[in-house]
């Protein structure tokens, strides 16, 4: 393939050379020279050299030399190279010698200095908002999984919630928060959408978190996180959770360039958080808990139980001690490939990419495959530019059908396989006539032909038209269209033990759900930017945006399969009785008008304002349009006269902003009441309808007034870089979905109640103790931290229902009171276990002691929000070699240890048959161990929520370690490769925590090692 490609390149180059000579009779001259990198002086290979306005051009050879015949008249010659600033030189007919050495500058610094909001771009120096921008190589240097994984390590305000339930399941979408929750109570439960999720913008168009997760990281050029009102208000009522703006790479001008990026990884399950009993411990625990003791005084039953215990003991003596957790896990292999060809000349640039990714999760049967093709085209003629990005992707996912928890439950005194080596259906099956439950073997269920898989096909086309009317005035129109078709299918084999009690014709279950989504968005904007009288810089953007999102869900189920192997839905016997096809539909539309203005006086004083009028179909007719505004101001101190000649301070800015972005993550038809047919019966009068959902046209939408003050500081020759932000947010009114008394006719209702106030700060500090650019040596140490505190205000008794149900719930510790924090842990204080009686001693509200638990003695005993959390790390660049490590720290938070609460003390009569935490056996109170932390072993005693289970949650996590090497030109030149780099990244290497909690209930967590390869030809 390589020689072929070269031949094509040569052919194209020759074509370019031949064209002018064929046409021209005019006098020509030959320009000769060498193109080098400003950074290290190395020659640049493949730089395209073109005479402006013609198709006359060439490219530099392996030594960076070029030779170009040009007409002998005044003309501009353009040098362009991917990743470098374009260099345009005027040929004046006298300065041919000036072309002998061309120095090109890497454009990464430029990316650093521009804030891309997705609607407009602004120089960082003249922007008053709080934002953070990360380039492709920064993102890649901390991890290769996906953009979001890397952002969490790079920015302290960006939080990816760890899911104790779903662990590192590659098919679960994470919960993301920027600067904490704006707290919408009960909404996720009600509508399934995460109301705290930030807005994602990909190449100027709104997109979903799934798309971002699927996006091959090698396509990403930069990511900008917009945090405060000044930067997000342009997105109006969608922006209160912050905005993540992602730009993919645009094809670069030049000769055809082919690059390959590959990631190869291994991931291993992290089972160290599990602390389960071994066979002997479990049997002892069961004996102490009274499993083998008959309470009814039936001697025959006692005999049976004695025999059962003896059988198990015998097995243990034979050496049976099964470690079940290792069964469902494996070493997950990951490989991702991205091939991108790009090139073009002045008028047309093109890029064609193909990506493939296959992520095998650490649980067997858990896969995620993505295939993505994209075509980028840019056409520029005169004052017009047309660009189009087309992406087609196909996603295939599979999930294990037996959850990890079932393996964690299995008792270690059972054998995995029977004596004949086969996997038995049951680990334990009671004899005929015994009132006891059989224990099914998770390995049996996992061995069956059951599956859970999803295929998804997506198509996205984004078209942008730009008209450069004058130097100052630009118009841009864009239209994006995307369609996604998901096909989810699950099948449970008829042999699955769950169907044991069912009739032969009802066994097995197949379900099919199809989700079709069609989204379009259009936008027209006019941008103006001009410097007046050399001191007054004015920027303005005004535009109109409309969007529509339509989703349809179809589904059905079928049952009655007779065979394990043959699984086509056509083999089903029928539909489950009483079930009907599922269908739901939702259509959301929104329009908005927006204006953004910026004024800068003498590069020193900055001012920004935004205004947006939003209308959305989800808002009731009474409240359809909503205003968002923000103002911001800033001061570039380093531009002041007294600092202008100072070499020490490179950049010093203070800024502040205020605004009221809103939240629009709501369901489509909640503004008005809807009705449905009561299809189960008709009468002589025909059909009837009744209320299906009650609308609330007067509901006021949640908005957050957001204040931010911050400073950006760079000094000591750009060696020290500090950013600091302090913010406070007031979400008023809160929107909450609360359960209501049945007499209201509905069981829950969305309502406005009270407000939430949040204060927080975040800071990033970077220092380069060693910084020698000419030698390509750079050592960085970075540190970032974030902290925030929230409290409720004016909520009164609105949430008394939630408080009451929280009090009576088994393990709910969240309460809603004025002045209370949304993350506070509420429980009754405990003085520990009384050595004399083994009973828990509680501390009442007034400080007195009592053995009686009274739920009204609840106080705040902790807060899950850490006092401070962040990352510190260091990176070293030494010639082509780089190494880095990043550690996450978390300090000052508490956690209610549910593992202790449910797997040590509150083990019910049924859970006692599951394997349990080792601590359920040790450190338990008994006559001989009176100073124990836990109560005595008992099946019937209920343990109440108390501070005994609240523990400090301090942690140090090795989040990302990496080493990389970029091969120098002289080594790879002979292989006709223009760039080659390798990088090895390890994520979640270790975890040191002050509390031991089981994590990864349904799916374990993983540690991973990835090798990334990048080759450019």
């Amino acid at each position, binding site marked *: 393939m390589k020689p072929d490609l070269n031949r094509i390149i040569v052919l194209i180059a020759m074509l370019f050379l031949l064209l002018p000579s064929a046409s021209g009779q005019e006098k020509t001259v030959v320009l000769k020279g060498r193109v080098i990198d400003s950074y290290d002086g190395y020659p640049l290979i493949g730089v395209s050299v073109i005479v402006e306005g013609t198709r006359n051009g060439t490219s530099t050879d392996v030594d960076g030399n070029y030779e170009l015949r040009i007409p002998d008249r005044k003309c501009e010659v353009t040098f362009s190279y991917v990743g470098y600033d374009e260099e345009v030189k005027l040929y004046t007919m006298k300065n041919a010698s000036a072309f002998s050495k061309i120095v090109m500058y890497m454009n990464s610094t430029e990316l650093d200095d521009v804030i891309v909001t997705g609607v407009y771009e602004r120089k960082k120096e003249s922007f008053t908002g709080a934002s953070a921008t990360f380039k492709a190589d920064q993102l890649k240097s901390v991890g290769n999984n996906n953009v979001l994984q890397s952002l969490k390590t790079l920015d302290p305000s960006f939080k990816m919630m760890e899911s104790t339930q779903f662990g590192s399941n590659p098919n679960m979408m994470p919960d993301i928060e920027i600067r904490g929750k704006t707290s919408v109570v009960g909404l996720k439960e009600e509508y399934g959408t995460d109301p705290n999720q930030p807005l994602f913008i990909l190449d100027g168009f709104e997109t979903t978190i799934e798309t971002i997760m699927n996006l091959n990281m090698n396509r990403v050029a930069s990511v900008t996180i917009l945090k405060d009102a000044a930067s997000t208000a342009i997105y109006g009522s969608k922006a209160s959770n912050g905005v993540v703006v992602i730009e993919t790479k645009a094809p670069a001008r030049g000769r055809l360039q082919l690059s390959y990026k590959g990631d190869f990884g291994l991931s291993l399950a992290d089972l160290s958080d599990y602390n389960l009993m071994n066979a002997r411990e479990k049997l002892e625990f069961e004996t102490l808990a009274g499993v083998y003791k008959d309470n009814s005084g039936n001697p025959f039953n006692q005999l049976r139980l004695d025999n059962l215990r003896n059988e198990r003991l015998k097995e243990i003596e034979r050496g049976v001690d099964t470690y079940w957790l290792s069964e469902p896990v494996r070493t997950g292999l990951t490989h991702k490939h991205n091939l991108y060809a790009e090139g073009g000349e002045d008028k047309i640039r093109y890029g064609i990419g193909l990506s493939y990714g296959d992520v095998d999760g650490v649980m067997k049967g858990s896969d995620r495959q993505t295939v993505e093709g994209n075509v980028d085209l840019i056409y520029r003629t005169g004052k017009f530019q047309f660009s189009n990005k087309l992406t087609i992707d196909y996603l295939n996912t599979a999930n294990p059908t037996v959850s990890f928890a079932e393996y964690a439950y299995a008792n270690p005194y059972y054998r995995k396989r029977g004596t004949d080596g086969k996997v038995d259906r049951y680990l334990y099956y009671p004899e005929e006539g015994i009132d006891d439950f059989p224990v099914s073997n998770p390995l049996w269920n996992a061995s069956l032909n059951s599956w859970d898989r999803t295929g998804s096909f997506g198509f996205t086309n984004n078209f942008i038209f730009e008209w450069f009317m004058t130097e100052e005035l630009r118009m841009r129109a864009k239209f994006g269209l995307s369609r996604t078709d998901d096909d989810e299918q699950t099948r449970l084999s008829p042999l699955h033990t769950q169907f044991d009690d069912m009739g032969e014709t009802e066994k097995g279950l197949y379900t099919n759900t199809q989700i079709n989504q069609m989204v379009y968005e259009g936008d027209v904007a006019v941008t103006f930017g001009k410097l007046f009288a050399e001191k007054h810089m004015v920027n303005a953007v*005004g535009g*109109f945006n409309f969007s529509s999102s339509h989703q349809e869900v179809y589904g059905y189920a079928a049952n009655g399969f007779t065979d394990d192997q043959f699984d086509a839905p056509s083999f089903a016997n029928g539909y489950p009785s009483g079930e009907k096809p599922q269908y739901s539909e939702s259509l959301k539309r929104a329009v908005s008008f927006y204006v953004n203005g910026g004024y800068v006086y003498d590069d020193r004083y900055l001012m920004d304002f935004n205004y947006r009028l939003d209308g959305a179909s989800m808002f009731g007719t009474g409240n359809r349009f909503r205003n968002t505004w923000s103002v911001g101001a800033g001061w570039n101190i380093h531009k002041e006269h007294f600092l202008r000649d100072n070499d020490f301070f490179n950049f010093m800015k203070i800024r502040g902003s205020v605004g009221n972005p809103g939240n629009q993550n709501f369901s489509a038809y909640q503004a008005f009441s809807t009705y449905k047919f*009561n299809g189960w*019966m008709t009468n002589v009068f025909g059909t*009837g309808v*009744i209320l299906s959902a009650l609308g609330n046209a007067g509901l006021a939408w949640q908005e957050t007034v957001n204040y931010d003050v911050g400073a950006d500081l760079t000094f000591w020759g750009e060696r020290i870089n500090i950013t600091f932000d302090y913010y406070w947010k007031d979400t008023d009114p809160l929107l909450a979905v609360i359960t209501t008394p*049945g*007499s209201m006719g509905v069981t829950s209702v969305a309502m406005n109640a009270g407000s939430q106030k949040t204060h927080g700060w975040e800071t990033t500090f970077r220092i380069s103790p060693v910084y020698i650019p000419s030698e390509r040596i750079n050592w960085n140490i970075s540190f970032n931290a974030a902290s925030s505190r929230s409290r409720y205000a004016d909520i009164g008794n609105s949430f008394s229902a939630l408080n009451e149900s929280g009090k009576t719930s088994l393990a709910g510790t969240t309460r809603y009171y004025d002045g209370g924090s949304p993350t506070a842990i509420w429980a009754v204080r405990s003085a520990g276990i009384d050595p004399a009686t083994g009973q828990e001693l509680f501390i009442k509200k007034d400080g007195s002691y009592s053995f009686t638990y009274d739920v009204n003695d609840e106080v705040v005993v902790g807060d899950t929000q850490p006092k401070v959390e962040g990352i510190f790390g260091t990176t070293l660049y030494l010639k082509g070699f780089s190494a880095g490590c990043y550690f996450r720290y978390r300090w000052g938070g508490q956690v209610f240890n549910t593992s202790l609460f449910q797997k040590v003390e509150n083990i019910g009569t049924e859970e006692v048959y599951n394997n349990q935490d080792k601590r359920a056996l040790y450190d338990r109170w008994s006559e001989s161990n009176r100073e124990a932390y836990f109560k005595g072993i008992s099946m019937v005693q209920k343990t109440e929520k108390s501070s005994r289970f609240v523990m400090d949650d301090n942690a140090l996590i090795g989040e990302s370690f990496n080493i990389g090497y970029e091969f120098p030109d002289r080594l790879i030149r002979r292989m006709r490769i223009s760039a080659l780099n390798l990088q090895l990244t390890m994520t979640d290497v270790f975890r040191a925590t002050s509390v031991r909690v089981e994590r990864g209930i349904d799916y374990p967590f993983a540690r991973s090692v990835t090798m990334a390869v990048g080759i450019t030809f």
Partner: protein
Amino acid sequence: MTYAIALAALLMTAGCAQWLDVKPYDKIAEDELLSTEEGYMKLLNGIYIELNTDMLYGASMSVEMIEIMGGAYAVGTDNSVWGNYRDLSEYEYGTLYWRARMNETWNKAYSLILNCNMLLTNIDADRDLFSEDNYRIVKGEALALRAMLHFDMLRLFGPVYSRNPQQLAIPYYKAYSVTPNSLLPASQVAGEITHDLLEARILLANDPVRENGGDYRNLRLNYFAVAGLLARTSLYFGDKESAFRYAREVIGAVEDGIFPFVDRALVTGSPDDPDRIFSSEVIFALSHSQRNSLFKDYYDPSRIPNYVFRMDNDLMSNIVFGGGAMTGGNRDDYRYRVNWVATGANRYFYKYSDMADVGNIRNTMIPMLRIGEMYLIAAESQSDDIAAGTAYVNVLRSNRGVNNIQELTENILRYEYIRELYGEGQLFFMYKRMFAPVMFSSQASKNPQPSDRIFVVPLPDSETEN
């Protein structure tokens, strides 16, 4: 430029507002539904249909839960057969199962009240949509439905009205509100119920039922059904004078042939296919398309060894349909001859078993209000002296094929209620109204004595916890 955009924005806002007005496809939007008379009719019919759910008059409030509480059925001791019914027959309302069942009934009743309120909130503005007298009829029926549902919740969860009329009972919802309404004293709830029924009565003044009789109007809360409800509620609230007046009004209609007594030939002439619910006498019935399931699920002797609901043998043969002058019981009674059929040693209740004519509307009817009750109310409320009502009871009895009684006593009246309304969900409320022992057994000592414990069901969890 900002001005230009602002101007453009203003102009486009109007157009956009229309574009933003989206309608769901998988559900019916309110303004679409309630834009025609037919839409209102469908909503009203939807409410009537939902009354047939098991949570309300399809089981719980007609033949099942409420009749167990009314002591109608002999409940066995074997838990594997009788399940949770044993607890209920002992008035153990606190069990998990019965708490959930009560909650379900309560929530369903109030969700239908909400449906009535949605209709009532919108109908006045849409008056022009209706043809003829339909606006008044639809509105009147919706008001009456709202009153009827509140009344049954008050009778179930409220205090024993004759003893504690001021006690906090239930909330009364006259419109949808985002905040819950607070509990009202029973007497205030009574006022609201009466108010709604009186308004409904005025709206239904031109109801065709007054000219044409039943003819499908008996499947709706027609003018006479509202009058009948007023008789029932007035008696419950202790207003005997009104009770008598409204009962008399319905009896007048009977005398005019609007709701005639059942044709003797239909109950005794063709014993293989009798009109067991005496359909011509029903002032208001629900129309349940699988009404036969009421029989199949609870009364059918072929259910054995599963539970079957029936009256205690001794109570039936010696007292209710025996017992002579003491109880007025007689085995010639049509109500005994057609509704109690012997299988083996026992007799089983056949009121809800189908007639042979499969498509007949009578096979769908669940009686909610019948003229027999009107005669009994008239007898009870004519004066404080119960004997004064003897004549009314004798009119009823003569249409049941049994001889006159000499003088009406409270005892005979109660047995007459049992004979007339058995299996229709009214017995528990009668005992509660009279604060009388529940006649569960032939042995008076076994009958539960009246008390708040048995008569007042605690408010459901969903009401008190939220």
